[in-house]
């Protein structure tokens, strides 16, 4: 994680914004880029920690993944599921058309 890798430029910001589906106004792009660089610079000190024999922490809880029985306990709540939809029709969610 040298300085070179931490440097985020506007093209990278555009790429990340696209991946995140966020529309960033042109005028904000530079300051956002600066902010991101500052934050990435801040977290760069992790580089100095020796983690060669350390497993990543999967979870803090220490317990095992609980299992659920295969019973139908849910569903048949179309009204609730669609209640907050900005647009719905005949029981479907409606969105601008996607061309595959």
């Amino acid at each position, binding site marked *: 994680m040298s300085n070179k890798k931490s440097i985020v430029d506007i093209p990278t910001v555009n790429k990340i914004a696209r991946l995140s589906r966020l529309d960033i106004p042109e005028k904000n792009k530079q300051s956002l880029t600066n902010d991101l660089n500052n934050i990435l610079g801040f977290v760069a000190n992790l580089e100095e920690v020796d983690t060669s024999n350390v497993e990543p922490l*999967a979870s803090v809880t220490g317990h095992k993944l609980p299992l659920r029985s295969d019973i139908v306990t849910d569903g048949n709540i179309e009204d609730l599921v669609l209640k907050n939809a900005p647009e719905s029709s005949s*029981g479907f969610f409606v969105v601008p058309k996607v061309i595959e």
Partner: protein
Amino acid sequence: MSETLKLKPGHIQGETGVWEMVIGLEIHAQVSSKSKLFSGASATFGAQANSNVSLVDAAMPGMLPVINEYCVEQAVKTGLALNAQINNVSIFDRKNYFYADLPQGYQISQFTKPIVGEGEINIDVDDENQTTIGIERLHLEQDAGKSLHDQHPSKSYIDLNRTGVALMEIVSKPDIRSPQEAGAYVKKIRSILRYVGSCDGNMEEGSLRADCNVSVRKAGEEFGTRCEIKNLNSIRFINQAIQAEAERQVEILEAGGEINQETRLFDTSTGETRSMRSKEDAHDYRYFPDPDLLPLEFTDSYVQDIKEKLPELPDFAKKRLVNEYGITPYDASILVEEKDYVDFFEQAATGGDGKLTANWMISELFGALKKENLLLANSPISPEALGELIGLIAKGIISGKIAKDVFSEMMISSKKPSDIVKEKGLEQVSDDKEILKLVENVIADNQDKVKDYLSGKDKLFGFFVGQVMKISQGKANPGLVNKMLKENLK
């Protein structure tokens, strides 16, 4: 374009030489569970839009996943049936991307540590030859919902019923070498899934779909760039798509071009593959372990328990049927396609002639059922009834030819064969005296032909046999008829 040279399957003749195909398959099999992988909504097919959807499936704020133990068990079962490594610790990862049928904005899948590791299965390449196809891994993941794009000119309609249904993704190694092998591989996987009961393998309803990775190379060369053909839901389409794609690639390479690694769709109407129109560069899925879940862990004894309860699998069944019943490997391979074929066969062949039973099942019963669009489970002829029919043939009570008529009657009326034979008086005549009488009658009535036969026209023997059969309404025991004719045509 393949020329008329006798090429092995999976090979394409180009200007510059012979190309061979390298194929890997990713099969998505819907787990036969009642509820979904991480939610308690129903996983059944065909319900009214958004009725099999819970708040978790709809990804409302604050919703959380809880894993279905049955799905875990099915994945382990299937892994064992694929002779694969079972991983006692596995992780669920989020695969992040945006699409309208993906409410969470990510799919819960398994990336770095899947529940099942490497394995292998045997497939029949043709009637004589088998080959081994390696399995890379099997993992559990959520299915996505359905989008309808043709209901409205500018809008798409989204149904989340299928969202969150459990899928097992089975990834093969790139060991497949022809469209035919690919078809055989899918058939075998489907068979195994149905045997262990983890998936119903119904390709029409979408419970089994395949993505094919295809590349081509000249013999001895490294693997070429591959393209992925998505969402093939019949063996016929898999066959066609692979062939079309391989030919497309050969044409490009022969012309000096390069293959772009891309995702393609198979157009069933044109028989060609086409590139999926995606606006931007390759997806970056940003996989990371799902923090709403913990590592999935189970013990060796959990796995052992499942192993002990596994049903007999197709390969074993095939060997066993050949050994125990003396049937041909070819017949055995057809019978082991479905577990219920094996069960039916064994019931029908109990105490009887295995070879004959197999013969009748394969040549007569399956054909008749197909004609009526029936599954074996709904056969009007029970295994016991078939067994009884075979017994009548074996004991010589009816001839094979008469048996066919009895069989047709059984298909319609579901009556017992012995009852049909009695009612219609179809018992074979095997009494020496009676047959002798018939033979003498035929000889007496056809003196001129007897003279011709005795003077050397050997082919006329068939005529006499026919005549005896005719006057006995087909009931005369053909073996005896032959014997008696030979003795008396002097």
